């Protein structure tokens, strides 16, 4: 009877799905029962046989193509029941991202290695400010600088009068200090690279990130900037930062290939082409080059692609 129970559970034993007590019982039994031990051997053989067909990674080409397709589809898809925001509101975004208290402290960002100093506008909502604290007289409109307002909290009319109470939040500038290894600094740089309205600041952030320690998250943001930043200078900077990872990281390679195929700026495309050149023997890269050489709109891209393909003999 025990053998039946053990043999029924051998498959779960092999898949490491038994509870600790059951596993213990099975092991105790196997030590004493040659029949069940033989059955375990057969079960393991079965497991090994089926594992001979390994799971292959999707090719960079397939991944890139799937992402492109999805992006296109998302552009024409509305999110069910949600107001589509056209403008990204960083203040509101920050209210949701609960930043560590340390970030609220006011200090300077110092340079790293090169002594580059920079300050970043870090937007944070202040506690609610009453209008009456600002203006001298209730009848005159308070001299509030409209550009520092991040949102209006509430508007209440005092009953029986023409007085209105408005609660609003404002921008305050903070500063943070630390090295590139500091998680908080990285968070700020990542935020700046992705969200700052000023392309100069975004460029600075991306530039700092290219010197940041070898970190997959930094890489992700660089890839994001490469694909989404509206400013070609920022995209070029991001390409720079990704250049050393093209060979080793398949996702970087496909992000660069995407930029090569899709980017609106010829400078970015040329740089992307230059980065994938050492990989021209790779079949995924070759198929992109082939397509470019045949049907790209730009003559210089076509001829460069053709020249690269000519240097690599056809490999099966």
């Amino acid at each position, binding site marked *: 009877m025990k053998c039946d129970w053990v043999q029924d559970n051998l498959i779960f034993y092999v*898949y490491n799905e038994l509870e600790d007590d059951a596993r213990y019982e099975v092991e105790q039994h196997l030590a004493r029962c040659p029949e069940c031990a033989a059955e375990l051997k057969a079960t393991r053989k079965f497991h090994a046989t089926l594992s*001979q*067909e390994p799971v292959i990674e999707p090719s960079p080409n397939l991944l890139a193509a*799937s992402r492109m*397709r999805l992006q296109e589809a*998302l552009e024409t898809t509305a999110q069910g029941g949600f107001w589509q925001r056209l403008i990204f509101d960083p203040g509101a975004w920050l209210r949701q991202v*609960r*930043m560590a208290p340390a970030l609220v402290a006011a200090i300077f960002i110092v340079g790293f290695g090169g002594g580059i100093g920079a300050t970043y506008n870090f937007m944070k909502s202040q506690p609610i400010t009453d209008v009456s604290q600002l203006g001298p007289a209730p009848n005159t409109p308070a001299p509030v600088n409209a550009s520092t307002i991040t949102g209006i909290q509430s508007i209440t009319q005092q009953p029986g009068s023409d007085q209105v109470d408005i609660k609003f939040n404002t921008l305050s500038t903070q500063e943070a200090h630390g090295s590139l290894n500091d998680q908080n600094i990285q*968070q700020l740089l990542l935020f700046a690279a992705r969200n700052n309205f000023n392309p100069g600041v975004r460029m600075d952030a991306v530039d700092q990130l290219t010197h940041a320690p070898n970190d997959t998250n930094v890489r*992700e943001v660089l890839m994001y900037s490469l694909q989404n930043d509206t400013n070609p200078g920022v995209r070029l900077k991001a390409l720079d930062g990704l250049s050393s990872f093209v060979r080793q990281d398949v996702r970087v390679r496909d992000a660069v290939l995407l930029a090569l195929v899709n980017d609106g700026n010829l400078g970015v495309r040329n740089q992307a082409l230059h980065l994938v050149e050492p990989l021209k023997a790779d079949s995924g890269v070759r198929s992109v080059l082939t397509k470019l050489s045949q049907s790209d709109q730009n003559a210089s891209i076509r001829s460069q692609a053709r020249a690269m393909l000519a240097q690599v003999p056809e490999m099966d």
Partner: protein
Amino acid sequence: MAAQGSRIDDTTLIREAQRGNRAAFEVLVRHYDQSVLRLALHLTGSEADAQDIHQDAFLKAYKNLGSFRFECSFYTWIYRIVTNLCLDHLRKRNVRKEDAPVAVDGSGEEYSLLDQVADARAGANPERDLMRRELGSKISAALSKLTPRERMVFELKHYHGLKLRTVGEMLNTTEETAKNTLFRATQKLRSALSEMR
């Protein structure tokens, strides 16, 4: 401490995406799309089908993100969507058995086109390649004897290493049911493979 590690976490991205920020959704997609594609590719054996599943899954996620209430992880949620799409695919494939992706090699033996996807560097050792193709086709034939649910449970457990509790969640059932399904699947596979010797 708000941020654990510098990767922007799913919760933040989801809330942002739910407010309509498509860029946040795209970053969220990238946390998962490679493994989704890997699963779809191995299960279907076809790049085109894998792409379709990838597309359908993330579009569905995008459209329904409003109803995601953090009752489970996003990982489980998206895999539930993908698993259902894979099950649909398997059911359709069962109906059109004559369309099964097989080809015939030089010696007249049928082999699964799955092998074409798996073996990118053929030609180095023809005998080994032939043996691999034969084994591959045996495995494919055995797998095709499973019901779609059995196939799915086996795929997730054996090829992607997920715990049966997770597999149960993805199939909207219990761990116990997933366990029983795995048991049946492996019994069927073992007898199918031994018959083919």
